[in-house]
């Protein structure tokens, strides 16, 4: 398992991607799984940075491959839980001119991942992403 700590800052994104690419290389993930994990982690990491939720603590990433599944977990200390699995759905039935990008990232992540789970335990938020690998 790989684990790394990141500053809660958008400028950490490059380091986040480096971590994910090292994981993809070491565990020989296929290109699609690697893309999907990049995209999903970016969405949730930037949400954590943007919406701070009452803390400036660092964000931890863990990544592990078990058989045909890759799992990445984002963990942060926060006093305000936010269950990403219950986030507002993107509205696709509005006219083009009124369409807004809000919620789009979470929608794409949900659609491309094979699993998305949230838990809040002992003041820590944990978002767990899973992606089945191509054989």
């Amino acid at each position, binding site marked *: 398992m790989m684990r790394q700590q990141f500053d809660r800052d*958008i400028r950490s994104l490059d380091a986040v991607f480096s971590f994910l690419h090292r994981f993809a290389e070491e565990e020989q993930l296929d290109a699609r799984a690697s893309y999907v994990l990049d995209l999903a982690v970016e*969405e949730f990491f*930037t949400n954590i940075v943007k919406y701070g939720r009452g803390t400036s603590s660092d964000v931890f990433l863990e990544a592990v491959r078990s058989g045909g599944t890759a799992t990445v977990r984002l963990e942060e200390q926060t006093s305000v839980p936010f269950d990403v699995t219950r986030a507002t759905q993107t509205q*696709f039935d509005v006219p083009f*001119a009124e369409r807004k*990008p809000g919620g789009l*990232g979470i929608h794409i992540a949900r659609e*491309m991942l094979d699993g998305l789970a949230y838990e809040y335990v002992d003041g820590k938020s944990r978002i767990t992403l899973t992606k089945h690998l191509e054989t």
Partner: protein
Amino acid sequence: MFSISVNEKGTVVLTGRLDAAQVDRAREIFSGLDDSAVVDFQDLDYISSAGLGILLATQQRLKKGGKAIKLVHMNRMVRDVFKIARFDLIFEIE
């Protein structure tokens, strides 16, 4: 690494990875567009919702004046992202 440029034909050329940390550079170019244009994705390896947001805002602004951007040469993964976002209904994609 991400770069954006406009070539001699007026085509906007995207290269590398367009993520949330790079959107300001993309916004700078797209906000300057005031006519229909082609956006070349040939060398774009990655785009997330941050980049999609810039493209959506640009298309909405241009459409008000009867203009539009057309997207060309997307790789398969990027195209899948556009389909899931239902952006294939908003943009002409070649």
